[in-house]
């Protein structure tokens, strides 16, 4: 009889991007130690993070190991020791930003433990733009799809694929090329739980500025320059907003104003 999957989610206030990246790597490293006897050789461990959550997913944990998870999960979280961690409540648990929720399931059973002054359960939250919407997790195996329906792409690989796909589609639509190198995309990976593409433009006169200055201003704002096939900058840029795509025009105009402000003479 194969085991069931297990999931641990820590929901917190927005983490700095570098911290979310480091947290995901550290969680996987620690899980390999703490869950060594719980996950069979055929099972797998996966850690992922967004700006608001840190997630560990283990496949094939035998039914008899449920109690052991309840001991391992809080130990694992207590050992994270991320840069900038501090105690936010009386339990002594340290984390870079306040922790607001803990969800843990083994199959369809909650894994009960306490940490950061909170008790774990089967509830989490969807995307913040949707309002304070609680999401009930039926079982660990449905964790990623339940969050997907609540507009959260938990896995970095999913967000990256969504971002790449959206920029490629924008390139095709404009018959131009969106400059989106791996590094620039990676810098956006922890800024949005559900990246939605935005394409905006800027006044033609700004193209008179040195191209390297334009590119640097766009990259600092996490925007992506748009060029023609010969590599010449065009008066457009692509970017990502976080969440639903209602009110796209307001966002486009805001992003354009942010770029113009960054390129104004007083910003130098």
């Amino acid at each position, binding site marked *: 009889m194969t085991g069931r999957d297990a999931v641990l989610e820590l929901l917190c*206030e*927005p*983490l*700095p*991007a570098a*911290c979310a990246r480091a947290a995901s790597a550290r969680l996987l490293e620690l899980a390999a130690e703490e869950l060594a006897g719980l996950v069979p050789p055929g099972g797998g461990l996966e850690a992922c993070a967004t*700006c608001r959550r840190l997630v560990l997913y283990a496949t094939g944990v035998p039914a008899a190991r449920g109690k052991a998870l309840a001991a391992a999960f809080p130990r694992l979280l207590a050992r994270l020791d991320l840069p*900038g961690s*501090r105690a*936010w409540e009386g339990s002594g648990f340290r984390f*870079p*930003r*306040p922790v*607001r929720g803990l969800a843990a399931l083994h199959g369809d059973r909650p894994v009960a433990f306490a940490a950061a002054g909170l008790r774990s359960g089967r509830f989490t939250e969807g995307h*913040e*733009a*949707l*309002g*304070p919407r609680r999401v009930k997790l039926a079982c660990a195996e449905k964790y990623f799809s339940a969050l997907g329906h609540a507009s959260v792409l938990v896995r970095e690989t999913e967000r990256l694929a969504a971002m790449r796909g959206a920029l490629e589609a924008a390139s095709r639509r404009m018959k131009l090329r969106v400059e989106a190198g791996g590094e620039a995309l990676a810098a956006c990976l922890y*800024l949005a739980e559900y990246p939605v593409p*935005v394409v905006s433009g800027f006044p033609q006169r700004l193209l008179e500025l040195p191209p390297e200055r334009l590119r640097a201003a766009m990259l600092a*704002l996490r925007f992506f320059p748009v060029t023609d096939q010969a590599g010449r900058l065009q008066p457009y840029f692509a*970017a990502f*907003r*976080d*969440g*639903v795509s*209602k*009110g796209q025009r*307001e*966002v486009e*105009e*805001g*992003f354009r*104003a*942010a*770029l113009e*402000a960054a390129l104004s003479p007083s910003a130098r």
Partner: protein
Amino acid sequence: MDFQDMIFRLDRYWARQGCALLPPGGAARPGAPASLAGAAGRRGLPPDGLEGVYRYRVLLSPAPAAARRLFLDSLRAAGLDRSEHDLRWPAFEDGPRAGAGPGWDVLLDGLPLARFSYLLPASGPAGAEIELSLERLALAAQRRKDAASLAWAGRLTYGELHAGEAA
């Protein structure tokens, strides 16, 4: 909703959350024995990176667990439809003032809207401080592009009210 009404609504919202309202320009100091809120105008260009001269300042002492949620709900109370905008939370580590902990420079559609910081006194529970640019919020809520065209009260505009003033 005009600028003046937005301030009324923020006052009412934060008063309902248990904040004592400060008179305009009242000095809210960190470490105050109660939660405080109020609008204030500042002369000259403020160094906090926020747009405009009008701020809405909230001190939550102690900070409830839902402090960020309260802030988001206050934006809705002030007429902002959150689903139509992009809100980002670029994080910063400890602020320069003693007791100023980590927080976020909140961006609305890529533009500075507010600064939300935790206050970490040497002893006692953490507080939270929110500084909000009223001009930025009004521009989004009223869907205007420049502050001068903002409705201040009825037919009086922000531009008419501040005509002849030095920037």
